[in-house]
């Protein structure tokens, strides 16, 4: 509703949205319980996630895999990481509806990878060092893996390298090597580092990657999927999915996975929609006074909080103006004269940090004796 206000500097050609593959559960360090898996799938299904990597499986995990596979939802695919020499292949062949992921360079032999790719078209073969290979070496590997039957090939970014142009070059080069009627599709798996993981993922899907792999909250140092989803939403590439459950995803990450989301984490952090700055608060308050909650949600926020299950929050601190104080008093249903608001603001200006509700209550009642309403 507010888009008519925004200039079109960000406008881009109509790229195809990538599939979103989620690796968050791997941060458990074990296979999840059925309860945990069900909870997680309920949270991420509405977001449009198409594949969830459940964890790594060893030879003793096949019973667990079978029981987890029973909860596999129709519209999402469950994926497991395989260490072929340890895991064995017999059970894989019996579970063709599941997706598998195998990393080359961990002692995987050609025969095993061939058999795995033959048994399940949803097998992803990872080339972990692709970003460090020169084009000749990479082309040899890609042809070899394609000959083994791989339909999905994954590249992994490493510590912020390469940057955007490099990711695009890599993927365009790989896509240009495709042979036959159905060339393999490519998956980009970013690794956080030096602040460009999300930008790399964007460059990757714009260059033709069919899927982007990451984790919510950037857990484990991957592409932060919540930011990628918000990006797709703002670019108009994610129209069919609501992001309202993102807020619950953040809570689940903290409580169930023990992920520390710093306050300044984009989208999910506690500060993402807080402001105590006078100029910002004044604009929000004026938008609210005009009964335009959509303006209030957008005037000082790139991400509309209401669309991800959150809300804008105005606080009072040393850089605040009178609008902050008046907004807070109104939210607490406390009556206040102009003199008292000025007095509270004067106290706030001398503080070293933003005041909490309880501090403000304390100040309000302390000062109210001097400035009774």
């Amino acid at each position, binding site marked *: 509703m507010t888009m008519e206000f925004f200039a079109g500097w960000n406008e881009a050609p109509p790229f195809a949205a990538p599939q979103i593959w989620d690796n968050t559960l791997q941060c458990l360090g074990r296979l999840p319980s059925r309860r945990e898996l069900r909870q997680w799938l309920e949270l991420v299904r509405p977001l449009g996630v198409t594949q969830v990597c459940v964890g790594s499986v060893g030879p003793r995990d096949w019973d667990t895999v079978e029981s987890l596979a029973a909860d596999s939802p129709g519209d999402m695919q469950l994926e497991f990481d395989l260490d072929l020499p340890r895991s064995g292949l017999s059970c894989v062949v019996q579970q063709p509806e599941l997706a598998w992921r195998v990393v080359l360079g961990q002692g995987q032999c050609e025969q095993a990878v061939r058999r795995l790719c033959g048994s399940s078209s949803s097998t992803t073969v990872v080339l972990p060092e692709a970003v460090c290979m020169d*084009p000749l070496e990479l082309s040899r590997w890609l042809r070899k893996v394609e000959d083994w039957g791989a339909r999905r090939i994954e590249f992994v970014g490493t510590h912020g390298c390469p940057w955007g142009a490099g990711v695009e070059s890599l993927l365009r080069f790989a896509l240009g090597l495709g042979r036959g009627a159905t060339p393999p599709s490519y998956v980009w798996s970013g690794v956080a580092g030096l602040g460009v993981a999300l930008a790399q993922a964007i460059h990757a899907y714009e260059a033709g990657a069919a899927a982007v792999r990451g984790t919510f909250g950037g857990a484990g140092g991957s592409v932060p999927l919540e*930011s990628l989803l918000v990006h797709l939403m703002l670019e108009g590439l994610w129209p069919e999915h609501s992001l309202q459950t993102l807020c619950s995803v953040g809570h689940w990450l*903290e409580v169930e996975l023990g992920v520390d989301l710093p306050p300044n984490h984009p989208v999910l952090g506690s500060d993402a929609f807080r402001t105590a700055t006078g100029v910002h608060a004044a604009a929000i308050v004026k938008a609210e006074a005009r009964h335009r909650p959509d303006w209030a949600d957008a005037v000082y926020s790139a991400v509309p909080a209401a669309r991800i299950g959150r809300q804008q929050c105005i606080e009072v601190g040393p850089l605040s103006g009178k609008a902050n104080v008046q907004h807070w008093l109104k939210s607490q249903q406390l009556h206040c004269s102009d003199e008292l608001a000025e007095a509270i603001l004067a106290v706030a200006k001398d503080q070293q940090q933003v005041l909490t509700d309880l501090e403000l209550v304390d100040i309000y009642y302390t000062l109210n004796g001097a400035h009774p309403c």
Partner: protein
Amino acid sequence: VELLSPRVTQNQSDLLTFRELNRADDLRRYFMLRQMVFAEQGYWPTDAPRVSLDVDSFDRHSRFIGAFTVSGELVGGARIILAQDTPNAAVIESLLQEHGCVTPPARDRTYHAQRWFNFDAVIGHVQSQGKQVVEFGRTVIHAAWQNKRVGHLLLHAVHGLARCHGISVGLAVVPPRLARFYSSAGCRVLHRRGPSRSPELNAEVVPVVLELSRLEGPFRVALRAERCLHLKGEWRSSTHSANPEESAENLVDWAGNPRGGHGWEPVLSRLPLLRSGVSLHDETLRDGLQSPSAVNPPLEAKTSLLHHMVELGIESANLGLPAAGGAARKHSEELLQYVAAQHLPLLPTLAGRTLPEDVDAIVEASQNAGLAVEAGLFLGCSPIRQACEDWDFPRLLAFTEKAVSHAVAQGLQVMFVTEDTTRTPAHILEPLYHTALQAGASAICLTDTVGYATPRGTGKLVSHVKNFLGQHGYSARLDWHGHNDRGLGVANCLAAIEAGVDRVHATLGGCGERVGNARLEELLVHLARLSGRPLCSDSLEEYLLWGRRHLPWVPLSPARSTPVQPSRVAALGAAG
């Protein structure tokens, strides 16, 4: 009674286990530990009777008591007073009789802290919302375990225990020397309640309030404690502290020894990768401290940051917004005077709105310091801001002309900053730039105030404005100031550099308004890697360590972030 067995050594610190106490033997050891620690620290008045247990009337209302044990030995504990009788009343009575202690008189207040301070307004406000308030107190750690991070863990644990029981708000009174620690860790020392002294304790205390539903920074570990206590009835934790240098080392390693990325940048991408000669502008002391989690560092800390900036080769820094008044004005003026007195090779900038009073505040600061400064005068001009404020465009042009002319007439260099440039169309920007530049502005700053831009959008905007300046013969410097709301802060800076800006703004750790700005340390590494900008690893490490000390809520390494713990928390000794 030996509270801590000699066989329990630091090497066994992994075995710390926290649980709620309810057995007579556990409670007896906790009360003895309290007595011993408080006596050692001199909290008891000299004329106080010598007893073996510290039990007061509020223990009858200490609804929850929790403690850490190592190999079964108690090393620290705390109580949580709730305005209900304790389930341990019978055990406490029998302990008092067993040790020949006098039964404490009935309480005169609901909470211990109310003996010192009037918490009625706060308690009334919380209870009116149907929430429960507790008081944390009698937090003690055995002398052998002090300064070993057990203090932090104990705070996390008791907060987790309270959350586990559905508590929303906690009160405490603590020694003044610990007020800063509590403050930096998410608790708040209540306003206008100076230290108080009670005849009961030989110590001054200050009041602290902790909102458990808003735990931040290091205290978020309490969420884990809560979960473990809820699921298993106990929380096990290690005292092994995270290596405080770890993040810095990681980043320095990336700078000095970049891994990967050798294949696709030089071979298939264009060369050179990034233009060199771009200067960096540090916004930590202005925009950085607008973070809602920020605690304004003392002036000495800010001056030391200026030296770190100089050592890193950062060319300029924003020293604050003097027109904000109060502490902000005082610090920005003093910092400017410091730069002048020390002859620091740093171009100082002060921020202000495009209003005459803001310009006057900057002029006054500049004159007091005897140093020329650049005024960063910002103007909200995006269509949505105009709609909210009911501004019309001629008014914006008038503001710009008046403020810039006034500042130039007063001898200031002016950087004209259009807020929210990335959501503002060219037909608004161009007349504003004409007006500002013709009034004497020497630089234009494009801002992504709300973190809306994508790298593609950034490149398009910068190229457009660069062409505009060239076409009209302006020789103004072009700056980029980005935010990180969409997680693209650093990538946008790189795109802006590639498109031709002369200076980019960033902050230490990316701290700033809402989720903050571009991270300066990451930018430094990118510039070293992609454009050959010199980068001294030791200086970067010092810069990051400053952030660890003064911006503890900011994760400094994107890959392995570990919130910083203050280096030392001695006896917690909360007196309540």
